[in-house]
């Protein structure tokens, strides 16, 4: 407790309390110049190979700096000894862990390392600097980037009109792209379902070319809405479970060649609807529990659609 070292006493005296270090104007230029090249979001290089941030450490947003790379916290507010970013720049140039690595840039000057240290001691405040955080997190989520193949359905889709999206969201619906970077929409009416009617579905008409996933379960829609839904040509998933839809409604779906999943449990749909469904060759999953479809009907549909699962229980 009493082991106050001389330099820190000196520093405390020398630093006027008011002169707080500004990250954006003072610290960022130092780190930006000496480090950013190797410690930023994953990038494709000229050969198309993805270059990940070195050591897993990104320095392009506060959260990344705080979190650090594979070795732990990059910045530990108030504690330079536990801040890897500071520790690595202190190392002699010959040290294999020194940053920037030997021959890959000029080591920081004493004034610069002191600046970083004092900024950490002051609590590592980033002020108004946000970096490029938001733009990059979704793209770097595991499993998302490389695996995403071009979706043939997405071809020719235009941007959905924002005012329509807003109108629908105001009704309590979840409305949004099916995944990041997609113009295809999923729309889910799960709140206030007793207020969702054929009129609500009319509101979706301007989005006819965008909607690919639509959940109207337990709403008050009727076969009239199904006629509108039948024009949503990019529809792949449709849930109308618990509605009063009948065979006439299903007949309206005959143009939906992309449909691969239909949930019609607890509806009035019967075996008479199966001929329409049989013509939708992409159908893979159909749910008929508590509808009027018979066990034999379900079996024959499943047989007619290779690789499908048609369940009544």
């Amino acid at each position: 407790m009493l082991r106050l070292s001389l330099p820190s006493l000196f520093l405390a005296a020398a630093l006027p309390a008011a002169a707080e270090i500004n990250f954006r104007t003072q610290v960022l230029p130092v780190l930006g110049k000496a480090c950013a090249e190797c410690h930023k979001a994953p990038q494709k290089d000229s050969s198309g190979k993805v270059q990940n941030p070195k050591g897993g450490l990104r320095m392009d947003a506060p959260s990344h700096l705080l979190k650090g790379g594979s070795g732990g916290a990059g910045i530990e507010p108030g504690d330079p000894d536990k801040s890897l970013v500071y520790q690595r720049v202190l190392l002699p140039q010959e040290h294999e862990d020194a940053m920037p690595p030997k021959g890959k840039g000029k080591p920081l000057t004493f004034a610069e390392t002191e600046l970083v240290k004092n900024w950490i001691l002051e609590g590592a405040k980033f002020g108004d600097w946000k970096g490029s955080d938001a733009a990059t997190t979704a793209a770097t989520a595991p499993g998302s980037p490389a695996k995403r193949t071009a979706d043939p359905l997405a071809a020719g889709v235009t941007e959905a009109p924002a005012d329509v999206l807003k109108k629908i969201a105001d009704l309590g619906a979840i409305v949004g792209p099916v995944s990041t970077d997609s113009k295809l929409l999923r729309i889910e009416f799960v709140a206030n379902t007793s207020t969702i009617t054929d009129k609500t579905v009319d509101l979706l008409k301007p989005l006819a070319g965008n909607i690919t996933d639509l959940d109207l379960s337990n709403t008050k829609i009727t076969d009239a809405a199904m006629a509108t839904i039948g024009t949503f040509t990019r529809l792949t998933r449709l849930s109308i479970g618990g509605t009063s839809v009948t065979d006439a409604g299903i007949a309206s779906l005959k143009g939906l060649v992309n449909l691969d999943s239909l949930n019609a449990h607890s509806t009035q749909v019967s075996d008479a609807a199966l001929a329409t469904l049989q013509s939708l060759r992409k159908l893979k999953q159909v749910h008929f529990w508590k509808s009027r479809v018979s066990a034999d009907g379900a079996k024959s549909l499943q047989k007619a659609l290779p690789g499908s699962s048609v369940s009544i229980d």
Partner: protein
Amino acid sequence: MIPNQPDELSRRQLLTSLAKSALGVSLLPLTGPTVAHGADFVPNRPRAAKSVIFLMMSGGMSHLDTLDVMGKKKDVLGKTEAISTSATGMQLSANLPKTAQQMHHIALLNGMNTTQGAHEQGQYLMTRSYIMRGTIVHPALGSWVVRLAGKRNSNLPGYVAISTDPNQAAGGFMGAKYSGVPIGEPGQGLQDSMRPNSVTEADFEKRLKLADSMNKQFHTLVSNPSIREHNNLYSDALRLMRCEDLKGFDIAKEPTEMQELYGKSRFGQGCLLARRLVEHGVRFVQVTLGGWDTHYDNFTAVPARAKDLDDGLAALLKDLHRRGMLNDTLVVLGTEFGRTPEIIGEHQDGRDHFPQAFSCLMAGGGVHGGTFYGKKDDKGGKVVEGLTTPQDLNATIGYALGLPVDQVVISPSGRPFTIADKGKPITALFS
């Protein structure tokens, strides 16, 4: 130690007394009014799951007597027998006969391993992804999910915790608005959220206005940010009390055969409530089944617990499937650790805590059913393949939902946290 607690209490006391005196109702539990609606959330993979039902087996479920019997030696299984399942080549314990019929929906996680061998610490790590410390309360998994994905139904809480210790569902540094709304008895649903019959609608409105003005006065007197955070509480509470979605909380609305399907146990009814809530757009539901701490008389205690689990879990999977909800709903069974392969004779054939190796499961939500990930040796005592930590499990849940699992949330103390710490999602489980 728990930063939001003191002020939470005063807030609660304030609301309860205000609500009781002014409205004639108690507004407990708080329902996380200010949490964002999920309309802005875009999953990072198509067809991501929308909701999670997390079944927590509290006490440390014996893996050898439930999920992991395949290829195990007789002497470690003891009285437990293996039965075949609806998935060819896969077996489960005879303690789970109904679940065995749903195996085609289930992926077993047989490579589970944790560093924590005590209940509280083990549950903490399982449900929060971080080691328990005295200085901070990390948010519960459900809090994370609602924080990152928002609510599906703005009229209802995003996170509901059934038969679960409220501490285990606490939002920690994210604050009370992300805490799970506790339901003690599934059959009783949200207590006190109905307008009492003795108060007319007009009267009620008047009382509400009065309460609102009292509340505003209170806000001007007290400038505590976490109190202001709940500023919308009255309007939210009002919405909740009048809202048709509230029937999601009422399992009495279910036909008798449905209540029977899930089993009459508290856990079974909790599973039924969980299904109803998810159907009404609740994002994350935890249902806890306790009593798995079978140090003594394991071969009597486990079958008794397993019966409730089997009824509830099998019904849940079957029911979600036939309603076409299973693809959108990830069902997870977790527990804090496993139990020893050694059967301890002095304890009437008991089994002790065993963090080195245990089992969990996932079903629905895009998970390939009828499979397993990870493997133990033939004694069930050592993970030999596909080692999976609680953090990996939580990362996998995040992945199933299409969440950015690397999204950092900074605690009020300035430290960075993520939903699954350094966990890696098991992407192989998904199509």
